């Protein structure tokens, strides 16, 4: 960290000065436990995962050096490819719909109206459910003996076999459940962003004769961009590590990247090293995604006022 300090004039001689000042010393002591927890329990293990993925490791520990052979085996493993495919399809489609519907809801409720509290409460209900439990609930509704959705879809002739016995239908259902569960949350985040846009800006644009569409694209979208990027990045990364939903909806049949890692740790001894390779893969790709949002789209990460 010492090298990160600017070469410009420093206040009171850098690191040493930092710790001589009692207020600053207290400040560091107060953040230290949190930093230690994060470094030892999140960042150290990811380095360990890198090591494990490069050796012929098993659930008992590190093995002999294996280079990138685990990664090669992982990419040749049909289960991994299926998991990758399902994860990407799931992430892209669910985040797309959550964003479109969430934005529509946020725009609609961005005003004072009767029953605002009720709407806000209803929005929070799906959010508060544990994901696995909402998956269990929806599974009961998709079920072929007592499930209302399966019954209706069958009566309408939309499906030819029970929903839960077909993997494509399962994936579609999982996307539906995710959209149901997290769209309200997306709407809340976007609403909070909308509320920071001062009303006068719109009034001024209206006076200048801007149409609704013009106002949306030249005022709402640019001013909403910071909140929008944060919401999108959060949701993308969360969908990308989907596990609970697939697990409980499909009775462990639907493969995702996360379920592949889990299989390596808890179910298949032989796949442990590949599971670690998948861990590293997930970490790096998630990191790249965040980087694209921050550098590529100019997402602000500053937390200072």
């Amino acid at each position, binding site marked *: 960290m010492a090298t990160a300090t600017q070469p410009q004039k420093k206040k009171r001689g850098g690191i040493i000065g*930092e710790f001589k000042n009692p207020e600053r010393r207290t400040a560091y002591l107060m953040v230290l436990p949190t930093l230690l927890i994060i470094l030892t329990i999140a960042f150290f293990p990811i380095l360990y995962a890198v090591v494990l993925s490069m050796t012929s490791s098993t659930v008992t520990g590190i093995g002999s050096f294996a280079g990138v052979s685990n990664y090669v085996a992982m990419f040749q493993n049909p289960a991994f490819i299926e998991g990758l495919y399902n994860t990407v399809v799931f992430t892209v489609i669910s985040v797309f719909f959550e964003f479109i519907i969430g934005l529509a809801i946020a725009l609609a409720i961005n005003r004072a109206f009767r029953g605002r509290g009720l709407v806000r409460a209803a929005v929070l209900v799906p959010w508060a459910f544990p994901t696995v439990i909402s998956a*269990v609930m929806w599974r009961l509704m998709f079920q072929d*003996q007592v499930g209302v959705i399966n019954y209706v879809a069958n009566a309408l002739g939309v499906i030819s076999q029970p929903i839960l016995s077909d993997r494509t239908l399962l994936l579609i259902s999982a996307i539906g459940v995710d959209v149901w569960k997290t769209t309200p949350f997306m709407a809340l985040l976007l609403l909070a962003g*909308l509320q920071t846009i001062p009303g006068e800006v719109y009034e001024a644009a209206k006076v200048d004769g801007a149409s609704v569409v013009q106002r949306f694209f030249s005022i709402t979208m640019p001013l909403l961009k910071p909140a929008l990027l944060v919401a999108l990045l959060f949701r993308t990364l969360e969908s990308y590590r989907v596990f*609970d939903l697939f697990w409980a909806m499909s009775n462990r049949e639907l493969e995702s990247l*996360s379920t592949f890692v889990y299989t390596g740790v808890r179910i298949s001894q032989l796949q442990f090293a590949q599971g670690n390779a998948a861990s590293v893969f997930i970490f790096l790709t998630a990191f790249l995604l965040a980087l694209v949002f921050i550098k590529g789209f100019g997402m602000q990460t500053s937390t200072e006022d």
Partner: protein
Amino acid sequence: MAGATARGGEGSRSFNMILFYVFLIGFVLVSIAPLIWIFKMSIVTRADLFASPAATLTAAPIAGSYETIFGDASFRRALLNSTIIAGVTTVICLFFGSLAAYSIARLRFSFKSSVMTLILAISFFPGVAIIAPLFLQFSAFGIIDTYVSVIIANTVFALPLTVWLLVAFFKELPKDLEEAAKIDGATTIQAFQKVIVPLAAPGVFTCAILTFIHAWNEFLFANTFLFTPATQPVTVVIPNFATTYTTDYGAQAAAAVVVTVPLVILVLIFQRRIVSGLTAGAVKG
């Protein structure tokens, strides 16, 4: 808040209002319908459950499904396990989180933005990426299949949320009070304990609720590190009910209702606070 909507003449305005409320009602219904349907499934008789999915009640509602699951010792145990895991995680997060948040919100030090970036990076960190190494380490320390393993893993992912929320709350508190306390001879720690903590109580409470919900809903770590009914929380136990109570869909529905209703009540009571807490970070970007 005004001004964001287009205003037409009187007629189109009231038509717009009707359309608006139809949209809202639809939205609210879609959000809560599954819970209501599952509740219905949990209180009907077996005959009604299987008769026809859309059937209305032909027999009086019964509590049989609830008797079944509360009669199940493993379910009662799971409720206790969930409460302990979520409760302890919340206490630990609030303790370390409030210290870190106070330091970030109020004190001056050089690496503040690096510290905040590091803490924030955890919210983007995929938990699944570290389950394998943590599994090995927890096994080595002999804490696999204990509450401790899950509490440790939950803490690291709940802590950023706690810090983030508390920084926002602490920043809102008037600064003069602590300065007055310091002039009267209080140390930084005393000013924090005697002035900030009591004033921040509502914010800390909101934060506690959110952290508790986060830990209560956690599934991946619990499912990886815990193998026995003695330690597994409800999120792990309930999906397995699909095999335990193969065709007793009423019992499965009842179990789902039992673990979500407390959360729904909590959310309904504190919705205003929760919304402001959840959106505190996003708005500032």
